[in-house]
């Protein structure tokens, strides 16, 4: 119990709430990079997944992407990004972390977008065509709205994974909440380690909850209700 009292004391210490290493700025750093990486990944993976799903080609690619995405250890990706980032003159810290996070976020978003569009009923698509809709309209006005909830599921899985993996960014010289854990380990300050873990865990769970609520709202508006995402089984970081 003494230990938990120390953790509580750490959280109530005003020194931990100020400056560039304080909880607010570390959290903001963490959230900002995670959001940025997830958005860039979504910008790349949603259009490609949706277009491939619409054309009906690339099923094999989609399956391989899930398998590869699941198998690759995120710590290895973030470490591998480092030498290449330095070689490219981008240095340590932000860029290797960002690159690794985008790479890790691509597979779940791509696969879910692909599957989402593929699982829109053929009869619905045929009906839309029969009503004289152009392919573009079918895609944008029929398939995309119906696929939206499942696409969002993919983005959720990716976002949770990104928030988790961003913690490891502290190992390649980046900031974020992982700093408390990594720095705490190196000076054997278990209180800081535990406090950092608590912050990271809460942030990851909050991300998951926030997306689930959004999904439910979207789903209630007539999307693909009750569908299980194939990417729900993505590995955490």
């Amino acid at each position, binding site marked *: 119990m003494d*230990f938990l009292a120390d953790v509580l004391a750490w959280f109530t210490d005003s020194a931990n709430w100020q400056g560039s290493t304080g909880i607010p700025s570390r959290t903001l750093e963490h959230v900002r990079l995670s959001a940025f990486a997830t958005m860039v990944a979504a910008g790349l993976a949603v259009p490609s997944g949706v277009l491939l799903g619409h054309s009906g080609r690339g099923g094999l690619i989609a*399956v391989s992407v*899930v*398998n*590869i995405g*699941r*198998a*690759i*250890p*995120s*710590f*290895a*990706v973030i*470490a*591998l990004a*480092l*030498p290449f980032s*330095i*070689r490219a*003159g981008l*240095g*340590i810290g932000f860029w290797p972390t960002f690159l690794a996070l985008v790479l890790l976020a691509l597979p779940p978003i791509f696969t879910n977008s692909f599957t989402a569009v593929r699982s829109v009923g053929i009869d619905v698509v045929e009906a839309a065509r029969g009503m004289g809709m152009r392919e573009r309209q079918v895609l944008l006005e029929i398939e995309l709205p119906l696929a939206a909830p499942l696409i969002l599921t993919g983005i959720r899985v990716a976002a*949770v994974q990104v*928030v*988790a*993996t961003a*913690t*490891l960014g*502290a*190992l*390649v*010289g980046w900031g974020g909440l*992982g700093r408390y*854990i*990594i720095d*705490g*380990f190196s000076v054997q300050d*278990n*209180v800081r*380690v*535990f406090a*950092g*873990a*608590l912050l*990271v*865990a809460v942030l*990851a*769970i909050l991300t*998951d909850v926030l997306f689930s609520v959004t999904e439910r709202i979207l789903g209630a508006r007539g999307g693909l209700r009750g569908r299980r995402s*194939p990417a729900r*089984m993505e*590995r*955490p*970081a």
Partner: protein
Amino acid sequence: MPQRAFLATEPLIRWGWIWDHLEEIRTQTVEHFILTGIAVGIGFAIAMGLSIVALRFRRTYGPVTWVTGVLYTIPSLALFAFLVPYTGLSRLTAEIGLVSYTLLILVRNIVAGIDSVSPAVREAAVGMGYSRARLFLEIELPLALPVIAAGLRIATVTVIGLVTVTSIIGQGGLGLFILDGLRRDFYTPLIVGSVLSVALAVVIDVALAGLERLLSPWSRAGVAR
């Protein structure tokens, strides 16, 4: 963690280093397997227990998947960090964390596997006088095997990836080389560790997928791929 800047002139791979450290690479690869094996083994035993409870008392399935789901969502480094104050920088800490991550995947697949057994088959067995335990062991489990095997594969590959992180809490495995490379600003071990852990995960994934197919010549596992 790099305090100094990495040298842009440092070659990505120094083959001489690899040649000199072959023995250590072998040892840590074996260690990686051991850490993975223990976690999947214990995780499977616990998941089987939880699944039996969830199958027997349906109401517990929701809470069981909720709790294991929360564990699954907690970032691995954070989960290890939670345990360090209590269990130290030990193998126990690593294994508790790793086992936690296998539970959701395994429970889901075991329950889905048993659920996929046709009621007609179950009734036939009961009609033949099978007891509940024999029904479970001799009918339901074998029929659920492909789905359970799929879960084991996903859990194993997941754990292989997560074992790399346990180097941060002082354990062995291929992550040790990655961490060593990061600490010494030395690309070669970093690349050796990363590339080997990726390769290991992919090879094991493919191998277990093959094994799965062998286990179920009559059907291909449909759930949770």
